[in-house]
């Protein structure tokens, strides 16, 4: 009896504490699901393995869509660039088109890159 009371009091305290913590530390709602985009940009700058970066980006894309979140600006374009570095041109084009579809603001730059590629130039 005594112990249950103490336990109950403990539970109440714990709940109050967690409510307090939630009030302070709940993650703010973001517009996009970010996953590994920025860390992978950094990996790219550091010259890490492109195949590894592609694997991480593909995994991030799956997680973002599984969570029903939005893909952040530049994500598809960045993945497209990684595909082009490994000679996967078709996949690159598909990613650039996805970037344009999600963000019409990117159209001028994506078209600039696509026209370079179609002329056989590097990105």
């Amino acid at each position, binding site marked *: 009896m005594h112990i249950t009371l103490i336990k109950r009091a403990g539970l109440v305290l714990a709940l109050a504490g967690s409510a307090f913590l939630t009030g302070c530390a709940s993650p703010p709602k973001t517009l996009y699901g970010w996953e590994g*985009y*920025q860390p992978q*940009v*950094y990996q*790219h700058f550091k010259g890490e393995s492109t195949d590894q970066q592609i694997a991480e980006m593909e995994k991030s894309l799956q997680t973002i869509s599984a969570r029903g979140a939005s893909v*952040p600006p530049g994500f598809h374009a960045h993945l497209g660039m990684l595909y082009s570095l490994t000679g996967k041109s078709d996949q690159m084009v598909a990613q650039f088109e996805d970037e344009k579809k999600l963000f019409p603001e990117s159209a001028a730059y994506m078209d600039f890159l696509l026209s370079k590629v179609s002329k056989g*130039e590097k990105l």
Partner: protein
Amino acid sequence: MIKRIFKLAACLAPMLLAVGCATQKATPYDYTAFKAAQPRSILVLPPLNNSPEVNAGNSVYAQVTYPLAEAGYYVLPVALVNETFKQNGMTTSADIHMLPPAKLKEIFGADAGMYITITRYGSTYTVLDSVVVVAAEAKLVDLKTGAVLWTGTASASNNEGGNNGGGGLIGALVAAAVKQVINSTTDQSHPVAGVTSARLLSAGYNNGILYGPRSANYSKQ
């Protein structure tokens, strides 16, 4: 006379607010040009690095997209942008920052350019301790007209234990940066650079950039 007192009070009130928010400057920023330009997309140029740490540019550049995109702007893919400059023989940030805005607009189609200068990056050693500090300045330029729309500065360190930066997005980042520093000694400046970037480029803060069109807070300020 009473009118005068009211006017004085109206002038002082924002100052009190600014003091409440720690280190921000007291004078409110003049957003007239920014509001008139209504930029939707931002091209962040490779940062100019005035610190002795060679990795600073990449470290900051990799972390600018998050705050600007969450503020409601389209942010051009930074690694790809960097590649385009390289392919066109532009390999130093100093040269890139000198390019005519109209030329940048023509290639990248962005409404505005963000010019960042890193002023401090890395460890500062004191007698008893070492502290990692990252500080940077930013300037938002209308790529159509070349007009400056906004400027700002920010810094962060791994020694902010007592002050978590005001909670929210940035507070969480500060906590993460401090935590990560404990766990990793190899690249301790990078998470601190992330906090600096968030403080420099997030919307909704005193004298910070305005929210962009993809934010629910757009044009409410």
